[in-house]
């Protein structure tokens, strides 16, 4: 038998990204990132219960440049996962399956997750 010339699908290197597939894998990745965030919050509570010196050290770490970078990333990850989760729940109830609707809701989620992250950060860190 000759080599089969049919395309192998889905093949990641030649795969054309759609909003639906991009958001699907981002939902998973942000979920795993949220697990890391929860572990950071675990250490926050752990240092808080161990004592003041340890807690000050923890605060120093999360208020460093790198720490803030991580916190912003975790905040976005949480916002995205919650918003995208609402979209998944709508699908579970049978709404929003049309391709056009799914694309629009996907774009709305990308933009709103960024906006909500900024609002969250400004209000939470008391910058407004």
């Amino acid at each position, binding site marked *: 038998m000759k080599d089969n010339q049919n395309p192998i699908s889905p093949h990641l290197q030649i795969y054309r990204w759609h909003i639906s597939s991009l958001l699907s894998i981002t939902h*998973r990745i942000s*979920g*795993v990132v*949220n*697990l890391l965030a*929860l*572990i950071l*919050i*675990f250490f*926050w*509570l*752990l240092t*808080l*219960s*161990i004592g*003041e010196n340890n*807690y*000050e050290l923890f*605060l120093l770490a*999360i*208020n460093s440049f790198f720490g803030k970078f991580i*916190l912003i990333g*975790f*905040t976005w990850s*949480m916002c995205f996962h*919650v918003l995208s*989760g*609402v979209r998944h*729940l709508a699908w*579970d109830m049978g709404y929003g399956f049309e391709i056009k609707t799914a694309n629009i809701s996907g774009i709305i989620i990308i933009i709103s997750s960024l906006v909500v992250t900024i609002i*969250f*950060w400004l*209000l*939470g*860190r*008391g910058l407004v």
Partner: protein
Amino acid sequence: MNATRKWILHRISAIILAPLFVWLYFSFLSLSKKNYQEAIYFFENPLFTILTIILFLVGFFHIKISLNEIFEDYIHNKKIKDVANILALILSIITPVIILILLIYKI
């Protein structure tokens, strides 16, 4: 646990977690700029302690089901998959239990 029940519980835990996560992140971000005393003072409110414990319990339940699904999709070796699932189970039991002990007895 059968698949349908797992699916439904996964969704229910998601609905419980969404508002809790928003609340906890907001509190965490606010307290990240304040000192030790203010953080201790925050957890003197029993409601906040209870909400945090619920978040960790329900959160790690949600994480356990999610990790099982992810391992099912990406790990093809059955032995490795079983070990990974056991580790996920241990993580999702130990973490909330430690949080429970810390928040009730230490803070």
